């Protein structure tokens, strides 16, 4: 996709910029095609191993018994919800400062995935809390701030799709994403700053992790596997979005050609 940029529907945009706009996604599609295959394969391999390890091979916990196994899906969802949001903020900065068109598409495709992951984090946490704490939900600082994170993801997904003009939607969404970034340190440190029902961090502690290696290693494997799968899904969605935009441009160009031929 090189000189075909002149079929761009945004004829008002300066020529050089619209060229850059289409040249870049073309390179992105080619480069990501190879990455994608490896990403899917690695995700299937690592996640498969991690889930079998966590669900069947790892030991029970001395207090929680078998219920500790919920952690192998709950904690990766929590890390992805926060890590994914940080990626959204980085994409938003790239969108606002450098007006990078790929960053807009990436952010737009990322937020529904992030919202789902955060919802899964809340749901699995609730399923753990009921037998262990004795309650499905409490309004402590950790749980409440993660709920806010979920609404930020949802809000971003809805806002970027609410405008007729996609670029304007991306701009507004990027601002929301950057305002919402203040919530990330609050989620992370809520368990240290305030009394919460939720326990403090076990893995990312300054001293040794408060988790035995027989439980820690399957957790890290699951977290890595889910991250790979998350990355593969977001990459496939972004690639699809790039192609869909190209399709719209081609369809528009074809309609214009037919119109011109008919006149």
């Amino acid at each position, binding site marked *: 996709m090189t000189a075909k940029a002149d079929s761009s529907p945004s004829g008002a945009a300066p020529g050089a910029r619209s060229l850059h706009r289409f040249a870049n996604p073309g390179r992105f599609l080619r480069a990501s095609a190879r990455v994608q295959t490896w990403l899917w394969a690695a995700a299937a391999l690592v996640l498969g191993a991690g889930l079998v390890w966590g669900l069947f091979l790892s*030991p*029970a*916990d*001395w*207090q*929680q018994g078998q219920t*500790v196994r919920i*952690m192998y899906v709950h904690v990766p969802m929590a890390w992805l919800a926060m890590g994914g949001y940080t990626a959204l903020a980085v994409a938003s*900065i790239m969108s*606002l*400062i*450098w007006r990078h068109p790929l960053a807009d598409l990436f952010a737009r495709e990322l937020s529904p995935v992030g919202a789902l992951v955060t919802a899964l984090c809340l749901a699995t946490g609730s399923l753990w809390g009921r*037998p*262990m*704490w*004795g*309650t499905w939900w*409490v*309004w*402590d*600082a950790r749980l409440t701030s993660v709920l806010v994170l979920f609404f930020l993801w949802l809000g971003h997904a809805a806002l970027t799709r609410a405008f007729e003009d996609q670029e304007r939607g991306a701009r507004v969404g990027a601002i929301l994403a*950057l*305002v919402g970034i*203040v919530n990330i340190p*609050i989620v992370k440190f809520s368990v240290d*700053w*305030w*009394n*919460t*029902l939720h*326990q*403090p*961090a*076990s893995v990312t*502690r300054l*001293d*040794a*992790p*408060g*988790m*035995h*290696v*027989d*439980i*820690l290693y399957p957790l890290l494997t699951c977290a890595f596997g889910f991250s790979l799968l998350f990355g593969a899904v977001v990459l496939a969605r972004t690639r699809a979005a790039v192609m869909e935009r190209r399709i719209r441009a081609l369809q528009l160009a074809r309609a214009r050609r037919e119109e011109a031929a008919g006149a």
Partner: protein
Amino acid sequence: MTRKKRRLYILLLCGLGLGSATALTLTAFQDNLVFFRSPSDIMREAPPANRAFRLGGLVEAGSLERATGADGKPTANFRVTDGAHAIRVSYAGVLPDLFREGQGVVTLGTMLPDGSFRASEVLARHDETYMPPEVADALKRAGHWNPAQGAAPPPAEWNTAPRRGG
């Protein structure tokens, strides 16, 4: 280029303002963000009578008495401590699975005139220690740790060590 620089500075300035506004708000609402109060907090500042609040801490070792109430429901009496102070708690109902001496709890209820706490809800608080039962048993056998007395020994003592016993 200058336009990009300007956008960058505007963004940094907004971030600074937003960050400090959030920090100020969180500091101002500090008291409301606390999910439970410790026995020391209660000693320092007595809560208003008949107002429900949450009391949290560790279940004191050797303080738990279970019984069956007149209506056949299980009841429990125990002391919640934070090391410095302890408050007696009475509760009628089923205790959660993780509840045991030495374990963190959060209870919802009111102070009684005699200085004890009447709980209508007891939630177990999980600590951040995860280990297989064999490792916990080995530690207990070696005399390193009595779970009723408090938290597990520092992870460096047991975490990278090869598994014993079991």
